[in-house]
């Protein structure tokens, strides 16, 4: 069976999780992988639990919905425990410690950074989602930074291009070195 990896980006509505998942999906596609991306369709677009799921494979994706998460990004406390039942025992968690006060506890590998705070220091709290993608890629190395750049060009608003690329790089460096380039690391869980 082709290896399938399951990723969930979760948080509160309005945090840009759907856009982040689209960018990630495009970047993974550009890296030659097959991606199935699904999300919760609810009548509300602001506030409340929001999630976007990716199942990726180097072959055909069998079942496109997540069943056992390899990676979980939690951007807000509202999403902190919503996905616990789907986590693999050795799942990797990326937590925005600016907005998540009590992350899931277990045998997971947790990477917590104040993503929103870092994003604000970079220029806008709205790119916390992209910082998270940078962290996720720093840990997983699922796609190349070139394909990420193409995906940003393809999917994200043009006015945010430079900021998005900076945010991704910041997140990536955080994950790989534990050090922020342009913002101080506040805490490591």
């Amino acid at each position, binding site marked *: 069976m082709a290896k399938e990896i399951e990723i969930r980006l979760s948080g509160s509505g309005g945090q840009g999780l759907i856009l982040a998942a689209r960018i990630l999906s495009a970047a993974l596609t550009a890296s030659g992988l097959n*991606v199935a991306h699904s999300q919760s369709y609810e009548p509300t677009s602001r506030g409340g639990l929001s999630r976007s799921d990716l199942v990726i494979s180097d072959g055909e994706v069998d*079942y*496109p919905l997540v069943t056992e998460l390899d990676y979980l990004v939690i951007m807000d406390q509202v999403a902190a425990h919503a996905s616990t039942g789907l986590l693999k025992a050795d799942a990797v968690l990326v937590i925005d410690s600016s907005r998540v006060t009590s992350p899931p506890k277990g045998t997971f590998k947790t990477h917590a950074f104040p993503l929103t705070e870092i994003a604000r220091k970079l220029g806008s709290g709205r790119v916390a989602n992209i910082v998270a993608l940078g962290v996720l890629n720093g840990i997983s190395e699922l796609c190349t930074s070139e394909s990420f750049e*193409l995906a940003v060009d393809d999917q994200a608003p043009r006015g945010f291009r430079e900021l998005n690329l900076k945010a991704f790089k910041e997140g990536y460096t955080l994950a790989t070195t534990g050090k922020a380039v342009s913002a101080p690391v506040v805490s490591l869980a």
Partner: protein
Amino acid sequence: MCIKKRPLSHSIGELDYDPTHLNLEVYFLPPAISADFNRNRLSVQGNHACALAAVAAGCRFYAGYPITPSSEVAEKMSEELPKVGGIFVQMEDEIASMGAVVGASMGGVKALTATSGPGFSLKQENLGYASMTETPCVIVNVMRGGPSTGMPTRPSQADVMQARWGSHGDHPIIVLTPASVDEIYMETVRAFNLSELLRVPVVLLYDEVIGHLIETIEIREPAELKLLERKWTRAPPEEYLPFAATDDGVPEMARPGDGYRTHTTGLTHGENGFPTQDPEEVDRVMRRLLSKLDRNRTIVESFELLECGDADIVIVAYGITSRAARRAVKLGREHGIKVGLFRPITLWPFPQQPFAEVAALARKVLVPEMNAGQLCLEIERLCSPPSKVSRMNRIDGEAITPIEILERVKALESND
């Protein structure tokens, strides 16, 4: 979504049809992203893939009415059709949308509409008209929870029978049920091909999960799509009979403006197109109408087999459920269970002969569906004894998971 645009070689112009009649220049956008960025691989939502494929298949008319979870088909068509000189119109209701689609097709233009359960019910009257008058058209039904308004944002597979028998009277209809975004693309093209070729309305039936799923798809070159066109008559007008049988049972069609001046009616009509109630004539023309799909089964039927060769247990599944079944088969095989999957892609007419061959070798058949049990009725009909068929149903707006299917397979195996 930025998509590389390329000239479509199969514009209306190729159909021996004047492309300038709309006074619309055919426009193509410059590539929005660098050409080497996955030129032919895109991340596309299922509903958008349907729209892109329709345009690639030569569809130049869309009429629809907003309804969750199908609206993205309309949205994409409103964006794409003007670029190729086509027409998008949002009508006053579902009924009018279907009427406008059939009207456009009677004018000779390939036409599409999309809806979901409640809207599909409203379309059924004019869909019956399309069946009776043998007017090609493609109808997308993205299935949501029902009955009635039900759960608009949650998936179901509960329109399997409505798609086949929703309209009134005995009528031919083709129902295709893609299970991935890439398959939506290819089956949309096939839907237009079958509809044009056989002059039968084709329903593209898929669940909300597949409709809203974003997956990597291949954008094919137009030449790869093997587009088929309607059989336009070239007979001398004085000899032409608009509903006369040909070798494949499908009459040749006359386009308005070409000098044939035919009559089209939903009343039972003879070969000349005019109403008849003569029992002998009615019997003959109705049998010809209803025989079209049987006579062309080989091109209509489509299905996929996975590990069916030695399977003791055969799962029959379609749409998102077949994706769960696919993984369940692989997991089951890892557990040493002889389990296989029969996946109909053409749901109606059901590929009964190929299925019967597979089912004859299996001791048990499992039919997981996101409804209270619909396709299982057909499966029970085709299995001997029917008692070897087990149903598995979810009606809570949630997809059936691979593990759930695997558990049932294990239980079926240990029950021997």
